[in-house]
């Protein structure tokens, strides 16, 4: 059996009358980067939030190392969550705190390290994301790309085993996107983490992914290495990866 760190089994989730996930099955291999592609509004973020217990499924199971998140209480869930880091779409930095307090937040919450040591870790993480010395800045003084990088520094502050990325390159210029992609590859290679990345950026996906999965109409319709995905005969997959408006996916 393959080594999967996260497994979604037959997950269903509706919001009101809108059925977002309809029997989704997905396995995330340990220590690899998996990129989930799919159209806007196809439920990628919803799926990602299931993996960390922010959303509970209406039906189905979410397993992290074989433990079922869907039946856990708050305390157990928090224990599992300390193994995760997450980069939100707009970084979700606490805008009442400066960069130092943002990045040190998980450290001061979950470790007993003295302040001096925490400052050192923060400085190191900020250097890792290419933003040394910005500790005193407030989030609103940073550009979108910088905020995402600070968000990444915060996500890796506790050296998590699993990092979830919600559209890390959306809304960034090509150079910044490339820088973020390199950071994802770099942290993966350096820390050996499992990464799950949501993206519309097909080129970026080919570059960073060991494993690509496509979400369409609430299910995973294709999964494999970037080469396998490109060779996938499914018309929906082909239409999406080549960005064509005509095809089985109704665009407008």
């Amino acid at each position: 059996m393959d080594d999967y760190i996260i497994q979604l089994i037959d997950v269903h989730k509706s919001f009101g009358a809108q059925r977002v996930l309809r029997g989704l099955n997905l396995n995330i291999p340990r220590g690899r980067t998996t990129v989930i592609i799919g159209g806007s509004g196809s439920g990628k973020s919803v799926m990602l939030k299931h993996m960390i217990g922010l959303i509970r499924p209406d039906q189905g199971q979410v397993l992290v190392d074989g433990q079922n998140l869907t039946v856990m209480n708050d305390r157990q869930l928090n224990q599992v969550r300390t193994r995760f880091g997450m980069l939100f779409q707009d970084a979700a930095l606490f805008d009442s705190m400066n960069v130092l307090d943002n990045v040190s937040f998980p450290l001061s919450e979950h470790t007993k390290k003295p302040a001096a040591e925490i400052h050192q870790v923060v400085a190191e993480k900020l250097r890792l994301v290419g933003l040394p010395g910005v500790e005193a800045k407030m989030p609103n003084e940073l550009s979108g790309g910088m905020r995402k990088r600070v968000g990444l520094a915060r996500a890796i502050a506790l050296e998590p085993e699993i990092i979830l990325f919600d559209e890390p390159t959306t809304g960034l210029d090509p150079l910044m996107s490339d820088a973020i992609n390199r950071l994802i590859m770099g942290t993966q290679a350096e820390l050996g983490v499992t990464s799950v990345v949501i993206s519309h950026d097909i080129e970026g996906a080919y570059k960073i992914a060991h494993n690509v999965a496509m979400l369409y109409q609430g299910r995973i319709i294709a999964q494999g290495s970037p080469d396998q995905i490109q060779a996938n005969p499914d018309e929906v997959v082909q239409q999406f990866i080549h960005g064509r408006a005509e095809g089985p996916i109704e665009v407008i």
Partner: protein
Amino acid sequence: MGWTRPFELVGRGFLRVLDEAGELLLLLVQTALWLIRPPFRFRVLFKQMEFVGVKSINVVILTGAFTGGVFALQSYHGFSLFGAESLVGSTVALALTRELGPVLTSLMVTGRAGSAMAAELGTMRVTEQIDALYVMAVNPVQYLVLPRIVASIFMLPLLTIIADFVGIVGGYVVGVGLLGINSGIFIAKIVEYVEFSDISMGLIKASFFGLIMALVGCYKGFYTTGGAAGVGRSTTQAVVLASVMILGFDYVLTAIMF
């Protein structure tokens, strides 16, 4: 079929009120449970006490001073009709300590701090900062809601003491300074008629209003949906609902306590 429509509307409105009341109570219960569970965040609590309390002092002083002043002016007008001007001081003092101090302070602080709570938590919700707290294994009710509620419960009575005092001074300035009531009589009548229980009951009410203000502000903020427009809506609803609840509970509490 048309004739059932009004009933449907009434029923749906009633259900929504029940729904909201239930959610408010649930949030209160969750907060109460976190009160006894570590970690205790004194720094965050003190920051909220500063925000709700210290930074509201100016607006409370202004409110108290003008309320006391105008109350002296109005009651002087009434009492002078039958020569009872000497009672202006005690009337002002009783009205302030029992009623106007706690209620006006709470309404002013609701406009200032309750709205800010809804706006801040609402913004944190729509920008996923609340989700980020969950992801970092920190419970947002414990981190955000609890300190705001506790701070408000403590600070509103303190602010009310200021409002009571400044209001009586305002009444004194108008009554003695402008209208020529004898200073000794003004003060003697206050001492004679105002009981300690008048003050303490007013302070208990204020603390209860603090709970209402913070609970409603946090509740509306915490469950915000719909981006910037949603934050605006939550803020407005928080101020309206909290103010109405303060006025409603004021009647109930007064009927029970006095």
